[in-house]
């Protein structure tokens, strides 16, 4: 994230300095403006969902949802505590139902449970990010709405290809994440004795 951010900012600012230096500042302000707008609209959504989630937490609805998916998530996210698995189940269910706005606060809570407080994110955290960033959703309601509004003959005929495409992207993401996790474990195992030798 650090490298990506640095590259985007520096390259864009250099180009703007050459082509239109007077716009650089106003462009940055426009970005911040959009952030305020987005944050406020999301606050409304988070307020409603976190309030409902809090009641679900206290009632035990979470545990009921978790029981449905627990066997699956226990295997995917090895070594995570019960609470983390609960939030992961809720995040996944909300995503499936197309309630992305509800899925986000639950996902953040799952991340908090998985956090070990170190500098580097754990493999489980990254796997969870990859699953969320590749989208798991049964019905892309927004896009169908846009097609219907534009006068499509069969606005919903994208459901099946979308589902297959999102399954493929998630499968590719999970496979790659698992590969990278295994590779970094191997590297760490190899690097340690080497570092030990060097320090001697």
């Amino acid at each position, binding site marked *: 994230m650090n490298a990506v951010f640095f590259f985007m900012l520096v390259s864009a600012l250099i180009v703007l300095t050459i082509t239109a230096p007077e716009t650089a500042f106003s462009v940055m302000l426009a970005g911040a403006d959009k952030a305020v707008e987005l944050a406020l609209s999301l606050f409304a959504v988070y307020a409603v969902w976190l309030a409902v989630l809090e009641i679900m937490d206290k009632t035990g609805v979470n545990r009921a949802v978790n029981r449905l998916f627990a066997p699956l998530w226990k295997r995917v996210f090895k070594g995570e505590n019960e609470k983390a698995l609960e939030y992961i189940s809720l995040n996944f269910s909300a995503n499936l139902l197309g309630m992305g706005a509800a899925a986000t606060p639950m996902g*953040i809570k799952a991340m908090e449970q998985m956090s070990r407080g170190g500098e580097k994110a754990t493999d489980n955290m990254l796997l969870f990010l990859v699953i969320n960033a590749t989208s798991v959703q049964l019905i892309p309601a927004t896009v169908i709405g846009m097609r219907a509004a534009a006068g499509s003959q069969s606005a919903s005929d994208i459901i099946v290809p*979308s589902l297959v495409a999102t399954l493929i992207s998630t499968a590719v993401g999970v496979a790659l*994440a698992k590969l990278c996790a295994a590779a970094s474990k191997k590297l760490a195992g190899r690097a340690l004795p080497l570092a030990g030798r060097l320090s001697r």
Partner: protein
Amino acid sequence: MSAYILPLFIVGVLIAGFAVRVPVYGSFVSGVKQALQLLLSVMPYFCAVLIAVELFTASGLAEKTQVALAPLLNALGIPPELAQLVVIRPLSGSGSTAVLRELIQTYGADSRIARCGCVMVGASETTFYVAAVYFSTVKERKLRYAIPVCLIASLAGAVAACALVR
């Protein structure tokens, strides 16, 4: 049908909470408090990501990336008309919606281009936004391999989208 699910779900949660004597009002308020804290921790990341994206598009670099990627995308079976969407999709949710709307208007809602674009958007997420938000409240800052993995996976989804839509 799906319009009923959401209100019914919330009614169900409220009744279940009341039945097992959860302080519904107090819990609700404490949930909103968490939302307020969440807003405070997420806000700086929104600013950073959105300023970067705004600069990236305004400077014309987004367009250059898209021109540079077009041959590669074409080789993967993604029509050049969709290159812009592929580039903007992981960066900005509202941006990709705008691009998709334009595609639908230009080529028609039932054209292959528009349908490919719809599947692409429907089957993917705003990668950078998700990464920033999900890690906004934890200490971990190094995402190691996550961003490249997400981007490659999204590209695989886009390739699949164009292969699936005839």
